[in-house]
């Protein structure tokens, strides 16, 4: 586990740079993670991130299908927001664990 300081906040990351404690997340952390992925966050991104965090809190396994049915973006739009690896990238930026679902 590594500790990183973002702005004034100290956060804990696992070896794949996912937050180990999702309560340490805030918008600054999201922006920093997004920068690492080459993404500039817009309001739409945050809508997706908040959806993912909410599902995570509910204990739901997140899939791209669920994001596609969220009413926020369709799957094509999800790929456009978080290119190449939408579910992994968005989960990391949302400060929740790496997705465990195969779809």
């Amino acid at each position, binding site marked *: 586990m590594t500790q990183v300081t973002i702005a004034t906040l100290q956060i804990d990351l696992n070896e794949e740079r996912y937050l180990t404690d999702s309560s340490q997340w805030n918008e600054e952390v999201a922006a920093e993670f997004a920068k690492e992925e080459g993404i500039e966050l817009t309001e739409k991104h945050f809508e997706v991130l908040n959806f993912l965090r909410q599902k995570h809190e509910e204990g739901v*396994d997140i*899939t*791209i*299908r*669920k994001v*596609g049915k969220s009413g926020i973006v*369709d*799957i*094509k739009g999800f*790929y456009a927001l978080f*290119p*190449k*690896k*939408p*579910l*992994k990238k968005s989960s990391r930026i949302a400060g929740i664990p790496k997705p465990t*679902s*195969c*779809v």
Partner: protein
Amino acid sequence: MSATEELIAKSEKKDARPLEKVCIICAKGTIGDVYAALVMSNGAVMEGIETKVFFTFFGLDAITKKRMNKLHTGTVGNPAMRMPGGIPFPTMLGGLPGVESGVSAMMRKQMDKLDIPPVDEFIDMITAGGGEIYACKLACDMFGVGMEDFNENVKSIITVGELYEMCDDRTQIIFT
């Protein structure tokens, strides 16, 4: 791990590059065969891997509009088939009228619970992420089907030569 093994592991890691391109071939039309190809394909797209899926022979059912969402599980001659609870499924029973349909409906219901989409939606997901779907020309000629019979996400009907032309030395070809 011996010192030599450690050295090998180290050098392999150094030279290893992430998977870039896959070409997945689906030649069979049971639920298990088709979903294996679809899960592999969608998984590749989700990892940012350039993905092409080639459907041939009985696999064509998976892209044929009137068949794709009604695929069946083989209940006869399938030794891995089990009753709910794990008791082996007798082949004689699998041959009775309606059994295959019933079992297949149960399979589809079970998959839906796990958020695994129906075939047409799964193919939508793959193409939404940039994956490409192709049908085999030889199989189309054999079965007398064409683009008009296929789901709108099928890009084109191609020969095996054209399939190989789309691949290069960075492509992994996976036959499910």
